[in-house]
């Protein structure tokens, strides 16, 4: 250890003053132990940035907190993989993990309460509904993030290219290449958090209705519709840039991609991911809440689909809670209603949560 001596810079008198000031020793708040409940919320991804930073500081300082984090991760994953109705709380104090289960239930209950009261059955897979939800306080924003995460989960809120899709309201053939329609496409995030899109079509393009949507991995979120007039269209998407935490200013050309695609007329069904792992996908109708249960009418007609299925609900930006599993028998023309318990915080009527119906592969 050698410290080079330099005579330049501050004098000895100044340095002695600095040393004495440093001796006043106002240590920053030391990272204390972290309650289990907070760890559950950290793993669930429902903490604010500041709260999460506190947890991470505690985990950096304490090996026991890091151990608890990994243990909590395993617990939360086991809760997620247990049908909600079987996620029994048991007698108070019996299980050492009781506190964790209790907190996890609170997370699920809160999400279900927020989406069923704020969305009131509105289809969350349109920007209008998601945007409105995101403005309902911290819980609303988190619920909107959860739905976003369910459909676009591989895309971080802070990075990744902004993939805009655009096309005609109806009758698109898919044969027109985007660059053959628009010669210029620009997007910019305004101070208000709105995203402004400006597009210019080739000279001679006739006036027509166009739409813009966000697309990712073959899923589309309709954003805004407008008219292409005199070869130009300028549209503002309320709060979209702010929601994605995009920096204010023009969106770099490198992070802006666009393609031509159909307007997802059936976006109301976009809130249900269906994963059959082969065969003809079952058709599902809109989910509804009746007597506190989630009812999902569906038709399983392809014999290949027979077997174990499970229904999950996105409850945090990175966690899906299994609601129920089903032993499906396929029958042509028969309508089956899948039913699952939900927390008592749910509101009767159409249900706007992000659902995932998937077939369990044999182990």
């Amino acid at each position: 250890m050698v410290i080079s001596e330099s005579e330049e810079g501050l004098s000895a008198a100044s340095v002695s003053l600095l040393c004495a000031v440093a001796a006043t020793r106002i240590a920053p708040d030391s990272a204390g132990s972290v309650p289990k409940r907070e760890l559950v919320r950290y793993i669930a991804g429902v903490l604010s940035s500041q709260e999460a930073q506190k947890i991470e500081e505690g985990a950096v300082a304490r090996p026991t907190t890091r151990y608890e984090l990994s243990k909590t991760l395993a617990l939360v994953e086991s809760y997620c993989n247990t049908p909600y109705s079987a996620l029994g709380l048991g007698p108070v104090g019996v299980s050492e993990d009781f506190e964790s289960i209790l907190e996890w239930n609170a997370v699920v209950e809160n999400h279900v309460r927020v989406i069923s009261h704020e969305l009131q059955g509105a289809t969350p897979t349109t920007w209008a509904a998601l945007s409105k939800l995101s403005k309902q306080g911290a819980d609303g924003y988190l619920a909107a993030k959860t739905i976003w995460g369910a459909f676009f989960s591989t895309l971080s809120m802070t990075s990744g290219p902004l993939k805009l899709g655009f096309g005609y309201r109806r009758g698109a053939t898919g044969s027109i290449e985007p660059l053959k329609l628009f010669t210029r496409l620009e997007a910019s995030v305004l101070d208000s958090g709105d995203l402004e899109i400006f597009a210019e079509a080739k000279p001679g393009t006739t006036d027509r209705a166009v739409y813009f949507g966000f697309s990712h991995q073959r899923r589309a979120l309709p954003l805004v519709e407008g008219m292409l007039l005199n070869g130009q269209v300028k549209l503002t998407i309320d709060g979209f840039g702010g929601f994605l935490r995009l920096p204010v200013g023009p969106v770099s050309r490198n992070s802006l991609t666009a393609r031509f695609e159909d307007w997802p007329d059936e976006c109301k069904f976009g809130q249900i991911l269906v994963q059959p792992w082969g065969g003809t996908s079952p058709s599902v109708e809109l989910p509804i809440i009746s007597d506190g249960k989630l009812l999902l009418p569906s038709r399983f007609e392809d014999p290949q689909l027979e077997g174990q299925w499970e229904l999950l609900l996105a409850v945090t930006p990175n966690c899906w809670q299994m609601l129920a599993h089903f032993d499906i028998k396929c029958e042509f023309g028969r309508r089956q209603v899948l039913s699952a318990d939900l927390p008592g915080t749910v509101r009767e009527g159409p249900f706007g949560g992000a659902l995932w119906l998937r077939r369990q592969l044999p182990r």
Partner: protein
Amino acid sequence: MSTPSDRLIAALELFSSKVDSTREEGFSRLVARSRPFLNSLLANSLRSESDREDIIQQIFQRVWKSRERFEFTTVGAWWRFLRTMTRNCLIDHVRSQSETASLEDLELQDIPPAEIEMVDAVVEAMEDRRLLYRLADELFLDLPQGISDSLRTHHLLAAKLFLIDRMPWQTVCRIMNSQTNEFELMGRSDLDRIVSDPSLIRHLAFTELHWENEQLCAYLLEIGSDPGKDSLGLENPWSEEQKEAIQLRFQYALLLDQILSRLGTSVNKSELVAIFDRCVQLFPFVEIMYRLRQNVGPVKGGLDQLASPGLWHRMVFQYHCHNALPQKDILDRTAGAAQAAGTDVTPGKLNVGLSNGRLFKKLADYYLQRGSDGY
């Protein structure tokens, strides 16, 4: 949330009030806040604790007398005022003891007017401990300047989970990706990139090796409560008196004489010295270094970072500035681990680093060159 600097300014404003009760409240806050500063200033000039206390009392009496014309706009101005006050009281004190004392002996010469603005800027920065330690991390550990505290913590946690706790990379990434609102998603290649960053290895080693006094004391008391368990060479568990002595020495960093006077006649000096020497032998730092070498060994260049001078400057700075440890104690906590890392921390090198505040000087110069952008 108010910063320490804000709280000091608030105390100064209260003290400037014309309302007596408000002024008294401000004064009591200033006394509490300024006592360590005065102790530090007087430490080199006055060995006796009671002499120092006398001078501190005089200083506060003079501050109280000056209350009617009291007005400060910066924390730097307050500390400079207090330093001048200290110097004047010290001159009076030394003159009463000896006719031959001079200002040079007192090491409290005036701050050159050309430096006042710079000193105030650095003082302002040093009031904020997070900023001070961040500057120290940048200067000594070579941590990058442009990233936020939260991202640094995020990366450090990922490295600890992976290298120290040996968790599978999938588990580490799953934990680190729990919070989706601020950071980029972390995958295997991101994790590899993070843990192979030399400055992060130094940062990780620093956080493993630097222990707070409370933590070290708790460790000593715990291992001494069941000596047979770890073959520590202790014949019996610590007695209550020994525990108290250990607490005074390692948690409150009192000197031997201070501890003796507190404990009275129940323990003699040589017994205390033997206990403290034994405690130093029980320090965990060498073992931590061996473990660190195992943990970071597979990382290319990892072992070199453990022996890098910057890491040991950072350790010394933290023990000196944050824990206010004397050089001997700093040596006890660093020398063995440094040797295990393949370098050395010696009394001579420590003296060079800490005498005349050389580490502080480097840090202040760094701050003045770097500026406050990005903090």
